[in-house]
């Protein structure tokens, strides 16, 4: 078990966003969490990245380490958990190269860093063309590519992806998912949260359905795609 989450509870003030959810991911898997807007998908990823505080009783372990012992930056630099946040959140005042370089801030393996940058620029040739451009000037698709590339540079045991399809034209979306598949084949485990349930379930091996802060269904993607409830609620009949 690479990542195991038990009884994850998160509240924002008096409003509880996650009511104690359990899930786990094996090394090398692609797993998705689907759900509507506001179901708690982003909160789940933020809790794993330690960006939001969790309530007592929550247990999260990653590769045998208690995640609650790690601060947000150490989750990335020590455990290799990378996170592509909702809305990409690139540093628009930094160039493409600077965004990629900053993600290696805590890394010491300089030879490997250069190889990894070359790898990102090979997977996304568009970024290579725009290396010295400020990332704020990129198109939506290019920004998503850079956000994924940046996460790849920061740590790659597991990549948490928050709505990577958002705002992308279908063809670009296919490109982005193809790149993620490539990274997965090279050994990166992927946890994806998506509103675009069909896309997510076609991409992932297993899936969970999150509703109002609770996991209501789980299963193999094929089964979920054929589940009448899922079809009705998330796949448009």
């Amino acid at each position: 078990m690479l990542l195991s989450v038990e009884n994850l509870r998160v509240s924002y003030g008096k409003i509880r966003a996650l009511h104690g959810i359990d899930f786990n991911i094996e090394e090398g898997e692609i797993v998705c969490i689907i759900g509507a807007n506001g179901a708690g998908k982003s909160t789940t990823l933020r809790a794993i990245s330690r960006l939001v505080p969790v309530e007592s009783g929550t247990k999260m372990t990653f590769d045998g380490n208690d995640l609650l012992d790690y601060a947000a930056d150490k989750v990335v630099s020590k455990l290799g958990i990378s996170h592509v946040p909702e809305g990409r959140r690139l540093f628009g005042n930094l160039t493409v190269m600077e965004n990629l370089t900053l993600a290696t801030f805590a890394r010491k393996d300089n030879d490997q860093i250069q190889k990894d940058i070359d790898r990102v620029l090979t997977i996304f040739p568009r970024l290579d063309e725009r290396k010295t451009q400020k990332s704020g000037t990129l198109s939506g698709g290019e920004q998503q590519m850079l956000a994924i590339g940046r996460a790849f540079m920061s740590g790659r045991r597991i990549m948490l992806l928050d709505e990577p399809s958002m705002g992308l034209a279908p063809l670009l979306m296919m490109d982005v998912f193809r790149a993620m598949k490539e990274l997965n084949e090279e050994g990166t485990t992927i946890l994806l949260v998506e509103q675009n349930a069909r896309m997510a379930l076609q991409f992932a091996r297993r899936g969970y359905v999150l509703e109002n802060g609770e996991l209501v269904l789980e299963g193999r993607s094929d089964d979920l795609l054929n589940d009448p409830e899922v079809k009705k609620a998330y796949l448009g009949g």
Partner: protein
Amino acid sequence: MTLNLQNLLDFQNIIDALQWGSFYALIALGYSMVYSILMLFNFAHGDIFMVGAYIGFGIASLLVGLTVAGSLALPGWVILILTLLGAMCLTSIVGMAVERIGYRPLRDAPRASAAITGLMIGIILEQGNLILLGAKRRSFPEIIESQTFSIGGVDITNIKIMIVGVSLAFMLALHLFIKKNKWGMAMRAMAFDYLVVPLMGVSINAIARMTFAIGSALAAVAGIFFGMAYPVLEPTMGIVYGWKAFVAAILGGRGSIMGACFAGFLIGFIEIFVPLVFPSTLRDLIAYSIILLILVYRPHGFFGEPYSAKLRL
């Protein structure tokens, strides 16, 4: 009131303005850097300038004293470098302590709480100094013998040239650090989007600590240079010059490094040139009325961004 054109163009006044501008710019940088990454003004920063001046005074007095007594034989420039380095290190430790004790616990508190904390830390530093050293004014020792050069009929001292030159060198070094170094890159990233910085494996606390350290070190440089140029130190010196530098930080555009330097020098020029035209007793009244007027028409300062909560380095 006579307007003497010769005076206005006098190089003597220009170098004086550059010298005062250097003090204001070096201090203003500390306000701007901290604001850019944490969105708060460190109102204790003027008093950190004061602390830096006193630490510099302590180190310089010791070294000059030992040299005069004959136990050390250090040339003036070595004493100056040791004083600068020593005071920069010690003052940055004070700055980091202020961040750790005063501001980190309030990171998510309302901004007003942080502002008031800053004012209180400032009072503690002033009173601490009073208790430690008494209310007596101190005179900064002469580290380097003042020499006057005559260039084209204009008299300038070696100290003024050194102050302006070294200050500009520090500003350039800071600029390069922020542009080229990965820590500087992290500062720019944090200025743009504070919340996702940890996702890069970068510790927000480490960047905040470093920013306070650099700002405090630059304030110490300003303090020492101020002491060398106007050799009277008093515990309240941080208030008046700190506030003027704060005005420079606002005038430059909140969070803008370039703006802080530019506005620091602009205030230096306004303060030196206003008394050449108006009675000198009205200097600050007129100088700051001019600045107020600039802000009325440019409320976000020279390099700040209008209507934006997020400002950049």
